[in-house]
C-alpha cells in the first residue's frame, strides 16, 4: 500500500517536472534575444519640433504624456541596456519609456529578419539595410513612409540630412519614398593598425604600398618580432566575413567598385578588372610564404581581432579607424603584451602615389525606420527627430558629466575621463547607440581617448592618415531597381558559392592560376552580365 502511494507521488512529481520543463522552454522571446529594459521617466517635455502636422490621429509630439516606445537596436556586446543611466536620461528628455531589444551584434540581421516577418514590429527599428530586403519591407507596407513627417515634423533631421544622403534610403523600386532615415557618420579615417614595437624591433617603416605591406608581413611572420624565440607570429589574418575586397587593401591595386565607371565611362565587374587578379595573386603569395595566418578562412566574423589581441598578428586592417589607436584596441593588446605599442598606417596605394584613393559609399551607417503599425507614430517621429540633435548624440556616445566623463570640450570634441569613467563609457555609451553619428555641422561627433596623451595620439594619427587619404564617395548598385532579381538568379545558379570556393582554394594554393582564371572568365563574369547591364543602363555615378 505504502509502495503504491510512493509510486503515485513519484509519478506526479515526474509529471510536474515535465510540465515545468515544457513551460521553461517556452520562455518569452525577450529572454532569448537580448536585453530588454523598462525605465522610469520624468515629466520634462522633449526638446523637439513644435509642429505636429500628421495624418494620423495620434497624440501630439509635445504631449506631456509618457509614452512607451519599443525599439530594436544593434549595439556592441559591451553595451548595457538595463540600468543604463544614459538611457534613463534620454527617457527623461523625451518623455518616453523605452523598451529596448538589443540582440547579439553578430546575429542582428538574422534577428531583424525574424522580427520583420513576425508581424509584431517595434516602434523604432534600426534597419542597417538599404538593399533589397529593405525595399521588400517597404513594399510590403511594414515601414512608415516618412516624406510628409520629414517635411513637417522633423526639423532637426531636415537641418542635418542632405538630399544625397536621403537618396540612399529612398525606395526607388516603389515610389521613391523615404521609408527610413539614414544614420550618417563622420568618422576618423580608415587605417591599418600595426604593432609599432614590432616595426621598431625589426627596423621597418610603416608600409603604404602592397609591396611594402607584403615585405613587412613576411618579416613579422619570420623574424620573431616579439623576441620570444618562438615561431608563433604572423603578419596578419585576412578576415573574410568583414572585408572581402576591403577598401583598405584594394586601393593599392586600382580596383573600383562595380558601380563606379572608369575614366572612359565604362563599368566593369570587380573580378574583370586588371587589378583583381593582381590583388588575388598578392594574397596567394602572402599565404604561400607564411605571412598570412594559415587558417584565415576559418574566421567567420572578427576572430582575427582575437588573434591580434593574443599578440599573434602584427597588423589588423578591417573596421579599424584612427579611433582604435587609443582605448579599445590598444588596451586589449596590452593585456597580453604590456610592451605593445600601436601605429596607424594609411590604406594601401599603388606604387608612385602619395595619396590613397578610398571608395566610400555615402557615409551611411545604417538607417532608422518606424513601424507603419506603430501605435505612437507621432511620438516615434518626434523621438527620431530628437536623435538628429547634437545634444542627443553627445548623450548617447559621449555620456554624462560625472558619469562617463569629467569634462567635455565642444570645440575639440574631447572628453577627459578617469579610469572609472572610462569603464562606465564602455558600458553605458556606444557609437552603435547613436541615432546620427556626426555633429549637425558634419564634423566629428567626438574625439576618442580619455587622457591628454590619448588625445594627442589620436590627433597625430588623424592628421597623418587624413593627409594620405582621398575619400571618393559613390552610390552602390544595390539602390538600383531590378538589381535584386538579377542577384537572385545568380544565387540560384550556385555561382557565388563556387566563387567563394575557387577564390579561397586559389589563395591557399590548392588550385592553379589557370583553373581559377578559367572559372572567373568563363563562369563568373558571364553569370553577372545581366547584373552589370542594369548598372550600365542606369548611368550611376557618372
Amino acid at each position, binding site marked *: 500500500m505504502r509502495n503504491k502511494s510512493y*509510486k*503515485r507521488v513519484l*509519478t506526479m512529481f*515526474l*509529471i510536474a517536472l*515535465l*510540465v515545468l*520543463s*515544457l513551460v521553461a*522552454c*517556452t520562455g518569452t522571446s525577450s529572454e532569448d534575444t537580448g536585453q530588454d529594459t523598462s525605465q522610469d521617466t520624468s515629466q520634462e517635455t522633449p526638446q523637439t519640433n513644435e509642429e505636429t502636422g500628421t495624418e494620423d490621429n495620434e497624440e501630439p509630439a509635445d504631449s506631456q504624456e509618457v509614452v512607451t516606445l519599443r525599439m530594436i537596436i544593434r549595439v556592441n556586446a559591451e553595451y548595457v541596456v538595463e540600468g543604463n543611466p544614459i538611457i534613463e536620461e534620454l527617457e527623461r528628455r523625451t518623455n518616453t519609456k523605452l523598451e529596448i531589444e538589443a540582440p547579439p551584434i553578430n546575429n542582428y*540581421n*538574422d534577428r531583424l*529578419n*525574424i522580427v*520583420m*516577418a513576425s*508581424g509584431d514590429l517595434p516602434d523604432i527599428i534600426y534597419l542597417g539595410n538599404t538593399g*533589397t*530586403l529593405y525595399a*521588400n*519591407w517597404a513594399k*510590403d*507596407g*511594414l515601414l512608415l513612409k516618412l516624406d510628409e513627417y520629414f517635411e513637417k515634423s522633423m526639423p532637426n533631421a531636415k537641418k542635418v540630412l542632405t538630399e544625397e544622403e536621403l537618396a540612399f534610403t529612398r525606395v526607388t523600386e516603389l515610389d521613391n519614398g523615404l521609408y527610413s532615415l539614414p544614420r550618417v557618420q563622420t568618422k576618423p579615417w580608415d587605417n591599418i593598425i600595426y604593432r609599432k614595437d614590432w616595426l621598431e624591433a625589426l627596423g621597418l617603416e610603416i608600409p603604404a604600398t602592397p609591396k611594402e605591406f607584403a615585405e613587412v608581413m613576411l618579416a613579422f611572420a619570420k623574424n620573431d618580432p616579439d623576441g620570444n624565440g618562438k615561431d608563433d607570429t604572423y603578419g596578419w589574418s585576412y578576415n*573574410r566575413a568583414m572585408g572581402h575586397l576591403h577598401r583598405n587593401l584594394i586601393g593599392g591595386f586600382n580596383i573600383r567598385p562595380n558601380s563606379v565607371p572608369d575614366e572612359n565611362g565604362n563599368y566593369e565587374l570587380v573580378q574583370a578588372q586588371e587589378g583583381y587578379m593582381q590583388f588575388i595573386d598578392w594574397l596567394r603569395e602572402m599565404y604561400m610564404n607564411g605571412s598570412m595566418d*594559415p*587558417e584565415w*578562412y*576559418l574566421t567567420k566574423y572578427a576572430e582575427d581581432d582575437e588573434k591580434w589581441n593574443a599578440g599573434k598578428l602584427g597588423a589588423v586592417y578591417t573596421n579599424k579607424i584612427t579611433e582604435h589607436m587609443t582605448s579599445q584596441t590598444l588596451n586589449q593588446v596590452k593585456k597580453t603584451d604590456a610592451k605593445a605599442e600601436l601605429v596607424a598606417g594609411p590604406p594601401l596605394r599603388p606604387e608612385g602615389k602619395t595619396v590613397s584613393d578610398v571608395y566610400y559609399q555615402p557615409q551611411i551607417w545604417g538607417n532608422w525606420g518606424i513601424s*507603419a503599425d506603430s501605435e505612437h507614430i507621432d511620438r516615434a517621429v518626434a523621438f527620431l527627430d530628437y536623435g538628429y540633435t547634437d545634444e542627443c548624440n553627445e548623450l548617447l556616445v559621449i555620456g554624462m558629466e560625472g558619469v562617463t566623463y569629467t569634462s567635455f570640450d565642444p570645440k575639440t570634441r574631447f572628453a577627459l575621463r578617469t579610469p572609472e569613467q572610462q569603464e562606465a563609457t564602455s558600458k553605458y555609451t556606444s557609437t552603435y547607440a547613436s541615432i546620427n553619428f556626426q555633429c549637425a555641422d558634419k564634423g566629428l561627433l567626438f574625439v576618442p581617448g580619455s587622457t591628454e596623451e590619448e588625445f594627442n595620439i589620436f590627433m597625430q594619427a588623424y592628421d597623418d592618415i587624413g593627409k594620405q587619404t582621398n575619400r571618393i564617395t559613390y552610390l552602390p548598385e544595390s539602390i538600383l531597381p531590378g538589381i535584386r532579381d538579377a542577384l*537572385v538568379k545568380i*544565387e*540560384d*545558379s*550556385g555561382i557565388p*558559392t*563556387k566563387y*567563394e*570556393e575557387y*577564390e*579561397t*582554394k586559389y589563395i*591557399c594554393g*590548392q588550385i592553379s592560376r589557370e583553373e581559377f582564371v578559367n572559372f572567373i572568365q568563363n563562369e563568373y563574369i558571364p553569370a553577372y552580365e545581366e547584373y552589370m547591364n542594369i548598372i550600365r543602363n542606369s548611368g550611376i555615378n557618372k
Partner: protein
Amino acid sequence: MNVKPSKVNDRAYIKGLSSIWHYILKKRYLYIMCIPGMIYLIIFRYIPMYGIIIAFQDFNFKRGIFGSPFNNFANFKQLFGSEAFYNVLSNSLILSTLRLIITFPIPIILALLLNEIRNQAFKRASQTFMYLPHFISWVVLGGILSNFLSMEGLVNTLIETLGGQKINFLGSAEWFRAVIIGGNIWKEAGWGTIIYLAGLSAINPEYYEVATVDGANRYQKLWYITLPGLANTIVVMLILSVGGLMNNGFEQIYLFQNGLNISVSEVFETYTYRIGIVGGRYSYSAAVGLFKSVVAAVLLFSTNYLANKIRGGSLY
C-alpha cells in the same frame, strides 16, 4: 435467438472500446506522463505546420500567411530549376547516408561491449563519460574539435611527432565528411547506447544460463541470443534513423563550413539559413524545407514497409 449482425458488431465495438478504456485506466500514470510531451508536439510541431503554406505563396509580411497570394508553384519551379539546389541535395544525401552507415552500428557495438562488463562501478563510470558529450552544445564541441584538428592542434602535432605530414582537416573538402561524422560519433554514440542497453536488459537471462549449460561460448551467445533479442530494437531505430536521413543538423555543419569545403558542406540546413534567414527569401526556403520533409516521409514509410515485409514487424 437470432441476433442481427449489426447488433453483434455494435456490441463487439462497445466491448472493444470498453477494454481500451480499461487499459488506459490501468496505465493511467503512463498516459498522464505522456501528456506534456504531446502538448509540446501539438503546440510546437503540429499547429505551426500550417505555416508551410508560404512555400506556395509570394509571402507578404504585411498580409501575413493567410493574406499572401498563391504563386502557381513558382517557388518549386525555381527550386527544381536551380543548379545550387542539386548540389545541396547531393551533399545532404551523401553526408547523411555515410553518417547512417557509419554511425548506426556504433551505439550497438558499444552497448554490447558495455553489457559484457562485469564490474558494475566501472560500467557505470564508463556510461557516464560516454553520455557527457551529448549534453555539450556544438558551439563548445566545435571549438574543442577545431583546436584539436587545426594545423597547430593536438592531432597534427602528434602526426608530425610520428614522422608524418600535417593534414589540413578543417580546410579540405576531402576531410570534411570525416570530421563531421567523427564529431558526431564522439557526441552522440554514447547517448545512443541507452536504448540498446534497455533492450539488452529485457532479454531473459535464463537463455544465457541455458546456453552456458549447452557449452556456448561468448560469441555464440552474442550471435544466437543477444543479437536476435535486440533485433526489434535495432529495426525500430533503423526506421527512425532512415526517416531522419534528410537531417544533417545545422550547428555542426555551419561551424565547420568555410570557403575551402563549401562545395561539399552546403547542405539543406545551411542553404535554407543562407537564402531564408540571411537572404530574406522566406517562401523559397519554405519550399526547400517542404521538399526535404516530403522525401523524409517517403523514406520513413518505405523503410517501415520493408521492415514489415522482411521481418514481419515494424514501427506501425
